């Protein structure tokens, strides 16, 4: 059975819209010859960040799936948000603080590289958002040599809800998006229209885009 490293910050038991796609893939991949190893966050971190827990989401996940949970410590975010100045690192150090999960995303790089080497994992699948996880996955890929599949559950710089600390950092976000797309082996998007949008923006990467819609 081929192993796949699944990097998905949002995963069971977190009751979040970002959770279900990854959970549904993880449930079904073993029957198709791929064994996921999930890297996600832990329950105390979910609760600390205001997330909701729903254990029914995990009920059909095969028991032999390895789920490795990492605490979302993110000391830097906690410090700056405590003194209500998170905007400072977000604005002046955007690459390091692109989203509030960036600390968690950085913390999984070394363990992921080690896991890939020990278990001879060939593929990394990253569910994105958070974009910081996909950005970290580039480093994991470079250090481990595994193939990288980035799944954009929604567009990043073109998503209506996205909001950036100024135009300057919006341009940085675009360059991060470009880097993720150029460094990935395959970029999965969830609608044909998003594929068209990405193909227009990154015509040199058009063969990388695959559509896998959402589902039930």
């Amino acid at each position, binding site marked *: 059975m081929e192993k796949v490293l699944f990097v998905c910050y949002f995963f069971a038991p977190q*009751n979040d819209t970002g959770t279900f796609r990854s959970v549904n893939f993880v449930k079904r991949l073993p029957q198709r010859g791929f064994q996921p190893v999930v890297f996600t966050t832990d329950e105390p971190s979910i609760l600390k960040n205001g997330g909701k827990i729903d254990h029914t989401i995990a009920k059909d996940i095969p028991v032999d799936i390895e789920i490795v949970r990492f605490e979302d410590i993110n000391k830097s975010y906690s410090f700056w948000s405590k003194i209500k100045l998170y905007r400072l690192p977000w604005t002046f150090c955007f690459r390091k603080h692109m989203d509030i999960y960036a600390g968690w995303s950085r913390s999984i790089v070394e363990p992921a590289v080690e896991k890939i080497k020990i278990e001879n994992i060939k593929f990394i699948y990253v569910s994105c958002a958070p974009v910081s996880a996909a950005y970290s996955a580039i480093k994991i890929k470079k250090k481990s040599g595994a193939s990288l599949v980035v799944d954009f559950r929604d567009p990043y710089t073109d998503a209506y809800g996205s909001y950036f600390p100024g135009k300057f950092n919006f341009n940085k976000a675009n360059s991060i998006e470009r880097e993720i797309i150029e460094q990935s082996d395959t970029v*999965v998007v969830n609608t044909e229209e998003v594929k068209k949008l990405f193909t227009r923006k990154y015509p040199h990467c058009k063969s990388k885009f*695959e559509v*896998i819609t*959402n589902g*039930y």
Partner: protein
Amino acid sequence: MATNLINIGYGGWLQCYDPEDSADIGTSWFKKAFLDYRIDNVDHSIRSAYFLFKAVQIFKSEAPELASKVRINLWGKIDPGNIKLAEKLGITENVKISGLLSKTENLKQLDKMNMLFLPMEVGKNEDKSLFIPGKVYEYMLLRKPILAIGGDSDAKQLILDSGLGFHFEHDKLDALVKFLHKICIDQSNLEVNANEDLINSKSFDKLTDKLVEVFKNCKVN
């Protein structure tokens, strides 16, 4: 659920929008350049219960007895402003708001409904919304009629193609009021002709097959 009622259900996160209370906050060039830069191609304030509430209010003023059959059931992370909005529009007896349910309970609750509500956003200028809410697929799984309110979007096209959708523009409430009237008189007007091929293609069994293909092609590369 009582059979003579038309239960319209929605489970999940729902903001409150009231055009009378919403001010258009302009963004200065300074703010855009250095502080907040937002992707502003879609009006997502429309993605709320306001237009459905408003249609029920109009329906109630035209046919109070028939309108009493309409029940809007909202549960999940529902902005409490929706309760005030229902009071303001005089439709509190038509609206029931409750808390968050587990994923399993949510599906069970949706399945009890006659119709599932899908508020959608509206594209600005020439843009249309690319966003397809995850709940569209839950609705497809249940093969229930979908009451979609909003503008032109990929989500609208998908629900119309699924054969489950009744779509209404948010700024043409007359059509929605007529529809509510029609279904309250005869619930058979809610019958849908599901496009099974399309709906089956959205099962995660099929989608996981695609992901497996992605991995296999990566392997070849």
